[in-house]
Structure formats: structure tokens, C-alpha cells
């Protein structure tokens, strides 16, 4: 799975969890600047990412993901780890 594919799937996950339809808005999303990114949606996001990509995020990685960009880089790293 390459970065583009991971990104497309993450966009779908973010779209469902944060009720967003605009791709640009999703890609710019940051926890600090979004009321929708609360603790419950954060947990839902982690669960959805883990299940969709069949990866297990560590507590540190979960804490690290507080924007779409970071979600993409952490997920991509974990997916590549899984393939090695």
C-alpha cells in the first residue's frame, strides 16, 4: 500500500469521524484547532486506523497523532514496518 492509497483511506476515516466532506479541510485538520477533535473522536480515530490498516499503535504513537499529516506519517511508518 503506497502513500497515496493510505492517504485516500485516511481521508475516508477522517471524513466519517469528523463529519467533514471537504478534502482540503481534512488534510489541514489539527486537533488544536478543531472542536470536533475531542477525546472520544480521538479514540474512535485510533480504533478506525488500527482496524483499517491492521496495525497496532503504541500509546506514544496515539499521543503523537494530533493532525491529519501526523496520522498519515505514523500510519505509513507502521504499515511499512508490518511489511518488513
Amino acid at each position, binding site marked *: 500500500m503506497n502513500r497515496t492509497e493510505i492517504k485516500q483511506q485516511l481521508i*475516508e*476515516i477522517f471524513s*466519517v*469521524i469528523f*463529519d467533514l466532506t471537504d478534502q482540503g479541510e481534512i488534510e489541514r485538520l489539527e486537533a488544536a484547532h478543531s472542536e470536533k477533535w475531542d477525546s*472520544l473522536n480521538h*479514540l*474512535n480515530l*485510533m*480504533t*478506525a486506523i*488500527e*482496524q*483499517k490498516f491492521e496495525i*497496532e499503535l503504541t*500509546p506514544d504513537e*496515539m499521543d503523537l497523532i494530533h493532525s491529519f499529516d501526523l496520522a498519515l506519517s505514523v500510519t505509513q511508518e507502521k504499515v511499512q514496518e508490518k511489511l518488513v
Partner: protein
Amino acid sequence: MQFLEALKYSKLKMAGSARQVMVLANYEMDQLKTYVEAYAKQADLHWKAEQCGYGNLMTALMAGQTKADYQIIFLFLEDFFPALSYRTQAQWTHVLLEDLHAESETAVKKFCKTIQNYLKKCPIKTVIVPPILNAPPLWPNAPVLMNDIQNLLPYVQAQLWAHFKSDDLVEILDLNQSLSALSPDQVRDSKALFHKGFPMSIEAIDCIAADCIRSLSGAFQAAAKKLLVTDLDQVLWRGVIGEDGIDQISAHPDRENHCHHVFQKFLKLLVSEGTLLAAASKNNAEDVSALLDQPSQLKKAGMILARNDFAEISCQWTEKSKQIQAICRRLNILPQDVVFVDDNPMELWEVSHHLPEVSCVAFPKSSSQLDTFLKELRSYFIKSKLTEEDKKRSRFYEQKKKAEAFKLEHANLDDYLGSLQMTASIEQVTDSNQERPFQLYNKTNQFNLTGERLSQAEWRQFLEAPNRYIFTADLNDQFGDHGIVAVALVYLKEQTVILHNLVLSCRVFNRTVETAFLEWIAAQFKEEAVTVKGRLRHTAKNEPCRAFFSQHCFVEKKEDANTKWFEAALPLKLPKHFIGVQSESLLKK
């Protein structure tokens, strides 16, 4: 269902107000709520899930109040033994663990009693999710003590079962079944405990939520078929009775007859659970009678089933589809409630072609297919709980058969109905006698004036409202007690009695019960009311009751959106009925 899909479902908009499902648990239930709403919406149910509040299980149980329509009580071992929880201040000392084990019996019974008291105050449909995870690893320096603590789990499960197995509103989820696709390691999720406040994996939550919805929505009950029609030769027994002769047929439990023997055992079990059994066979009726009516022949052939296990036996040379239609007519059963078993593919094709609503199942050719065959059959007859009514159902149909035979001896219908010596006991439904009427009301399709279904909360709301009444009629005749056969919901508005709805069991159609019931209801309000009004809403299945109002001299007044309103002045001019009525005086509200 993947979690993302569950989220999508849970966010779907549905029309109308949602019914509430309250989740009572000490752990964080947000993701369970998502799955509960998702599975409900997938089943076209507009349900909203709420939680009593993290860590507030005991507070909610003690408060004993709910506005919910349904509830899920999700239990963990730590709820019974708070000292085992990571979250309490209790110190894990060796002494504490020894004490905990010594007092476990009292603690478990006390907690079960607390739940019981709560359910008495909040009697709505409830699913109890019993503890499935063992105690958290406490690492005591004594393997024997750890073993004792681990043994608490089966003890708690057994106590829950003992306390709630006879409560009709409660179902204890069979987690061994619900989680059968997951290994124990896939159920517990220690990381989730610290990060989500819930110690189980998302896959386990998914399975449990699906079963909670199946149970709460009554999907099993609704889906359960009512009648199994079986072929005889080479199915119920090995051999062809008309060709091989009665002495050559066999259902003994030996290698060649294994499938037939086990099938009969399975059918006997279904009959004991309230499923009706019938036979449709291309045979001479005398040949079959020579076997089924003779105890010595039954024994010789190794038969488990006898004549009285069958509600109907049809032995004719006509098509099986016609035989099944005739059986359905005699038993007042709809074809969609029937499962048909035959070994002949042509017969199965013929039935499925002419009666596509009937579920057809092929009898296995060898014992290697038996397990799959029985699993498929079982899936048609799953009931979440057996009621007393289920256990007596075969007896009711036995009475019906006797009454049918008796009918043939009488010159006309009036003569026959009069000779049945029927008596109806009419009662007003109160808190203490509402379970069976609620069940009958919600499962009756054919004689149901509006087709209405009520949730437990709506039923209670009706029951408790001023000037609103629910009545039941229990019918007795010379063949025995038929149990509760009719339910009416009635209210008084100004000077009019409104018949909100009336349902009648299909076992007692054409007995004039509905006339006697209506007469009694009208008489209760003769001082306050001058007219009676009622409504008829056509459903796909309520053909048998569409003439009810016109037969009872009501006049159609208006029609709106699939509902016709009828009205008649008091005193009603009713046709003759044949029921003697007994009743207590009405408790006016």
C-alpha cells in the same frame, strides 16, 4: 462490522423519534454504543444508546429509575468484587484476596439481588452481558489463591443464570456463543483498558453489540418459524412404508438409520419447545396409521415420534404444495412460517415453486451431512426464551383438533358453538399480569385491527395513563383451557369509548370470542359513554379481521392515510355469541 462502517451506520439520519437503549456499566461504553446504534439501524430500528455514566453502575442500580425503552447491563468481575479493580483504592494484600474469596458467595448473591431489585423497579426488556474476562492478573505469591480467584468467574456466571433465568424480560447473553469466533487473547485488550477505559477489543465489542440488538429487538422470536412439515418415507424413517411394508421400515439408532433416528429426536425437541409438527406424504393414510397409531409397531420400528406429536398428518397423492396449503389452512398458519423437509429434490422444487414463502430444506443423503442439516433447521426455530405458552402449544392444537372432530358431529355452526360450553374470563391488565398479554399483543398478525406493535415503555405508558385500560380474555371450553386468547387496548375520551386495538389468537378464530369481548368492554362504560369508535388499518397479514367492524354493526365514518374509523352507538347491536363471560369488576382510573 468494521468500526468505520459502524460509525457510518450510527450517524445515519432516521425519521421519527428514537427509542432509547440505556447501557448500565462501570466501564466506558462509547464504542459499544456506536455498535449498538449501528446494528439497530442496520435492522431499520431508530435506537439511540446512552450510558449511565462511567463508574456509575451501582448508583444507577440503586436509583432504580429509567426512561429508556431497553437496557443493557454490562457486567465485569470487578463489579462483584470491586477490590479486584485497578481503579479502586483497595490494596492488593494477601489477606484481602483471602477474605475476598471467603466472602465471595455472599458478595455475588448480594449484587445479583441489587440487580433484581433494580429490575423490579425498571421492568423493561433487558440484556445482561455476564462477566467473561477473568480477574485481572494480580500476581499473588500463592498459585492456589490465584486459582481460587480465577474460579470466581464461573461461579458469578452460574449465579446470574440462577437469578434471572425465569425473568421473561431478561436475557443473559451467551458470550461463549457471541464470542465464539474470537480466541481469549482477542477478547481482552489491556491497552484498551488504559486508553479507552474499556478492557475488551473492538472485535469483541462488535460481536456483543450485534447479539444485544438481536436479543432486544426480538429478532430471534420474530424470525422463528412456527411449523415444520416433514416427509415420511426415507426421512422420518428408512424405507418406503407402502412398498417395503410396515415391518421393513426402521428408525433404530444403528448405522444405517442414524440420520432418521437423530432427526426424530430433534423433532421431538422442537415439539417440546412449542414448534408445530406436521407430515405431508404421498402415501396411503391407512399404512401410516397402522404405524403411528400402534404402540407395538412404533416400538418395533424404533420410532421416537407418535401420532400425538403431530398437529396434522396429510397422506395423499396430491402435490406436496397443496398438502402444505391445506395444513396451513387447518392450523391458521401462514406459509412464511413453515419449514418443509423432504429427501426428494423434485418435491422440494415443487413446493418452493408453488409456495416460495415456505423454507425448504433437503434431508441429508448421509450422516456426514447431518450436522449441517440440523444446524440449518435449528436456525429456523431459535427462540431467545421459551414461554409457558410455548411449552403448552402442542396441547392447545390437540384441543383444537378434538374440537374440529367434534364440529363434524353437529348439524350446524350454532349447534356446534353452543355445545362447546365456552367461558371467557376477562381481566384487566395490571402490573402483575402483563407479560403474556404484552407478548400476545406484539406477535399477533392475522387478527390485529391495526397491526400495531408496542415497546415495553409504550405499553407501560398506556397501562398507567388515566382513563386507559388493557383487557384480556382467557377462553375455556369442554376441551380445556386455551389460555389468554385476546387483548384489547381501550380508552375513554369524553363520551366515547375508543377501541385503540384488539388482537385475537388464531387458535380461536370463528368462536365469537371477539363479540363477547366487545360486548363486555362496551358494558363497562355504559354510564359514561354514548358511542364506541374503533380503527382498522390494513396490513399485509390482517385479512381475517377486516370485517370485524361491519360484522358488529359499526358504520364507517372516515378514512385517512390507510386507517378507517368506525363508530357505533351504545348499546351496541351485536350478533349472537356463544361465550359465557366471567369477570371481576373494572378498576376505573
